[in-house]
C-alpha cells in the first residue's frame, strides 16, 4: 500500500505537492490526510468513485477551499497563503459545465481571457490557435448553448488553457460524452502535455486511467493506491485497470 514519503526535495520541484492535506465539512471529512506529488509535465490521473473527495482536493489546489489541516503546494506556492499567485498560473475546468450558454464561443474565450487580465491582441491570437486546436473554428460565432456537449467540453478546455497555464486541473472533463468524443478529448490533453503543461485530471472512466502517466485511486477521502497503471496492475496482480480499481477500493 502507498505510504507517505516526504522527500528532502523542496515543494518547488513539484507541480503539485500535498502533505497530510485534509478538509472537513462539519463532522464529515471529505479529504483525509492525503499525500501526493506530481512532477512538472506529468499527466496525473485522480481516480475514485463519486464522493471520494476528488473535487474537494482539486478545489483546495485551485484556491477555492482552504485546507482544514496539512499543506499543499502548487508550483512551489502554498495553497494556504499564496493562492492568488497560484490562480495566475493554473487553469481549471470544473466538473459542472460552466461556460455561458448565452454567449458565443468567441465571447466565452474573450471573457475568460479578460478575467485573466490578458490583452485584447493576446486573447485574439491565443483564441485563434486554440479554436483551431480544439476544432471549433467554424463554430466561433455560434451560441455556446447550441453546441453538443462534446464541443462544449472542448471549448471549456480551451477557456481553461487560454492564458497558457503551467498546470491544468480538469475535474471530470469527459463526464457524459460518448467514447469517441472522449478519445478526441484525450488527444487534446496529450498535445497540451507535450508542450510542457502539467495535467491533473480526475475521472471515473477506467479506460482513461490508461492514458495517464501516473494515477492515484481515492476512496472515502483517502488515497489507497498510487503509481503508474502498469505498476498498479503488477502490485494487485490483475490484468485490467478495472480490476485494480475494484481491488483498491475494496481493501
Amino acid at each position, binding site marked *: 500500500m502507498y505510504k507517505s514519503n516526504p522527500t528532502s526535495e523542496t515543494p518547488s520541484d513539484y507541480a503539485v505537492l500535498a502533505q497530510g492535506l485534509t478538509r472537513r465539512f462539519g463532522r464529515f471529512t471529505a479529504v483525509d490526510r492525503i499525500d501526493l506529488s506530481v512532477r512538472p509535465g506529468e499527466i496525473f490521473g485522480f481516480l475514485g468513485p463519486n464522493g471520494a473527495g476528488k473535487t474537494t482536493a482539486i478545489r483546495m489546489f485551485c484556491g*477555492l477551499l482552504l485546507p482544514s489541516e496539512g499543506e499543499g503546494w502548487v508550483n512551489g506556492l502554498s495553497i494556504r497563503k499564496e493562492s492568488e499567485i497560484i490562480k495566475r498560473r*493554473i487553469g481549471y475546468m*470544473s466538473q459542472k459545465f*460552466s461556460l455561458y450558454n448565452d*454567449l458565443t464561443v468567441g465571447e466565452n474565450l474573450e471573457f475568460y481571457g*479578460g*478575467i485573466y*487580465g490578458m490583452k485584447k491582441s493576446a486573447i485574439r491570437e491565443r483564441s485563434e490557435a486554440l479554436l483551431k486546436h480544439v476544432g471549433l473554428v467554424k463554430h466561433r460565432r455560434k451560441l455556446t448553448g447550441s453546441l453538443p456537449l462534446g464541443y462544449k467540453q472542448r471549448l471549456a478546455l480551451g477557456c481553461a488553457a487560454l492564458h497558457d497555464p503551467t498546470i491544468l486541473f480538469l475535474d471530470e472533463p469527459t463526464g457524459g460524452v460518448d467514447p469517441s468524443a472522449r478519445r478526441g478529448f484525450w488527444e487534446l490533453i496529450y498535445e497540451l502535455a507535450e508542450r510542457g503543461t502539467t495535467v491533473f485530471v480526475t475521472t471515473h472512466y477506467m479506460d482513461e486511467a490508461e492514458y495517464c502517466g501516473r494515477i492515484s485511486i481515492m476512496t472515502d477521502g483517502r488515497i489507497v493506491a498510487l503509481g503508474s497503471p502498469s505498476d498498479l496492475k503488477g502490485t494487485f496482480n490483475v490484468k485490467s485497470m478495472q480490476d485494480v480499481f475494484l481491488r483498491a477500493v475494496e481493501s
Partner: protein
Amino acid sequence: MRRVIGIARKEILHILRDPRSLAVAILMPAMMVLLFGFAINLELRDLPVGILDMDGSSASRELIRSMTSSGFIVNGGYLSSRSEIEPGFRHNRFQAALVIPRGYARSLIRNPSTEVQILIDGADGATAATVDNYMNAVIAMTNRSSLPRSLAPSLPLLEARIRYFFNPQLVSAHFIVPGLVALIMVMICAILTSITVAREKETGTMEQILTAPVGAHQIILGKFIPYILIGAFDASLILAIGHLVLDVPMHGSWMVLAGYSMLYLLIALALGLLISTVSRTQQVAMMLALITTLLPTLLLSGFIFDHSSMPVVLQHLSKIVPATYYLRVIRGIMLVGRNWFPLEGGVMLGMTVVLLITAVRRFKSRLE
C-alpha cells in the same frame, strides 16, 4: 481594469441576449410611469351628478350652476322623479344626485333653514367622501352669498382657506413620479444584481471565475457598471416622461438630483449584492430582494402611504428604508426647489458606505 471591463462586457451581453430582462429594464419603467401618471389618478374630475330640480326657479338653477362650474362635478343629466335615482346609481350613470325640493326659492327667502338633499353612491368610499366634502363646500358658499346683505356682517363667518404650497393643484403625478424613480431604481439595481450573482452560483460559473486571478472588488465593479447604466437610463426616462408629458415641475437643480440619485443607486446595488451573498439560488435571491427592498420602498418610504398616518412601529421601521430619505430629497428638489439636504444626504452616504463595505467583505472569493 481589463478584468473589470471583461466582466461588465459579459454582463451587458447577458442582458442584451435575454429579451425578458431587457424588457424589465427598459419597458417596465416606461409602462409604470404612464400607468401611474394617467390611469391611477388620485384626483377626481368630471364626476357626473344626477340632478332632480323640483323647484325650477332661478335660485335652483343658480345652485346647479355653482355646483357644476368648477369642472369637478358635471351635470350627469336632469331627472324627472326620485324613482330615477337608484337605477342611475345601479347603471353607473352618476355617482351622486342632488335633489332640490319644490319651494326651494321661496324657502330660501323666508326660512332660516332650507334643505336640499344629496344622495351619494357609497360603493367607492374614497370618491364618496370627496364628493360629500365638495358638495357641502358649494352649499356653504351658496349660503353666504344668498344671505341678505344687511344680515351678513353680523354673522361670524369663520372659514379656513387652505392653500397647498408646492403642488397647488394637488396633482398626484407630481407626487408619484419622484416615488417611481425610487421604486424603479431599487427594482433594477437591487433585484437584477442579486439575481445575476445568484445565477452564476447556480450554474457554477462563479466557481470558474473564482479560480481566475480576479479580486472580489473587480467582480463587483464589473457587475455594477451595467446596472448603474441601466438604472441611470431608467431614472432619466421616468423623469423625462414625468417632466415633459405629465408636467411634473422641476424647481431645483438637475445636477443636484443626479448626485443624490447616484448615491441612492449605489445603496440599491450594494443591497442587491448583499442579498446575493446570502442566497444560493435565483429564487431565494428574488424573494429576499422583494421582501427587503421592493416592499419597503413601496409601502414604507412615503411613496403611497404618508408616514404621519402610519402606526408608530412602522414609522420607526421606515427610518431604515433608504427610499424614505431619497424620496424626501427628490420631492424636495423637484417640487420645492431645495438643493441642500444635510440630514438625508448624510444618512444616505452612511448607508452607502456601510452596505458597500459589508457587501464586499461578505462576497467571498472562496467557496463555502
